[in-house]
């Protein structure tokens, strides 16, 4: 990657991408894919699906690069919004399809194969986290894991800061209650 690309701002790289510069867009992908992947993974809880969704989000960002207006939003906010929306759509679709009788679903948790190795308390926490609704998981991923403020997370989720606070509070209450139920 020539130094010109690595020193260019996200917004300029996206403007170059909109003109068809694929190397400029590759720089964007290399800058933001790791963050996008971590957030996606926490929402969909499946590494392979998270990878697919991030790739889809990047391609979508490329195809919509002409519509990005740097005066209205930061590039990273715009991109993460695409990622989070695709993940929420995925979770919605997944829950919308009823499973046939007797269907034995594959455990989607990335920690599924480690479940036997970890303690019961950890297993109870993981179960509670996996049971959380997608938007609560998304809010937790953005605020707790990635250190965003409630307002930044609110922009990405298309909600008010107050609504994000409520999502976080409900998620924490569920985790606390699950631990209490399991006597931890």
């Amino acid at each position: 990657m020539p130094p010109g690309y690595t020193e260019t701002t996200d917004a300029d790289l996206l403007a170059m991408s909109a003109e068809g510069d694929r190397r400029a867009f590759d720089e964007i992908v290399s800058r933001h894919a790791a963050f996008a992947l971590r957030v996606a993974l926490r929402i969909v809880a499946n590494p392979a699906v998270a990878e697919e969704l991030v790739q889809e989000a990047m391609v979508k960002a490329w195809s919509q690069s002409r519509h990005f207006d740097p005066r209205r939003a930061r590039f990273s906010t715009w991109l993460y919004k695409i990622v989070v929306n695709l993940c929420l759509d995925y979770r919605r679709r997944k829950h919308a399809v009823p499973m046939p009788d007797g269907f034995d679903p594959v455990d989607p948790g990335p920690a599924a194969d480690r479940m036997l190795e970890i303690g019961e308390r950890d297993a109870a926490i993981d179960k509670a986290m996996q049971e959380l609704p997608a938007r609560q998981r998304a809010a937790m991923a953005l605020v707790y894991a990635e250190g965003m403020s409630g307002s930044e997370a609110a922009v990405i989720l298309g909600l008010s800061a107050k609504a994000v606070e409520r999502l976080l509070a409900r998620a924490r209450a569920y985790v606390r209650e699950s631990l209490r139920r399991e006597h931890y």
Partner: protein
Amino acid sequence: MLTFKRFVELAESYGADLQRWPKEPRAAAEALLAVSPEARRLLIDARSVDEAIEAHDNRVTPTDEEQRAAVARIRYGVKRELASASICARSEPSVGWISRWLDVGIPGNLRWSAVGGGIAVAVVVGLLIGWTEPTPAPKALLTMLQPAPMRIFEE
């Protein structure tokens, strides 16, 4: 002014780490913690939930190596997708003139139906013309179209 009720709400949303809280109430929250055992108890309770969430997060977060490998796969996948997508992007200008031409007076959702209808009409008209028996060409016309004999050797 941070009320105790608001303090509880913030603790229940953002947990025990005040760095996660919105900036404005942080100083007031610290002042409240200094004087209120109840507020301190609340944050101790919140910390246990924080620890549970962090422990889960550490288990599901990919290692640096896993993350690098995943990012490399994503970059490769995006490049491949864009290479195929650019074929479509290049083909756009060749049909773009049709869209612009149809832009006058025809609603967007009917434009390509109009093109399809036009092509269908042209095909039907062509078939009808081909169906009818062709009239023989006049003899004079055939003579005119026939090439003249070429002389290769001069006598």
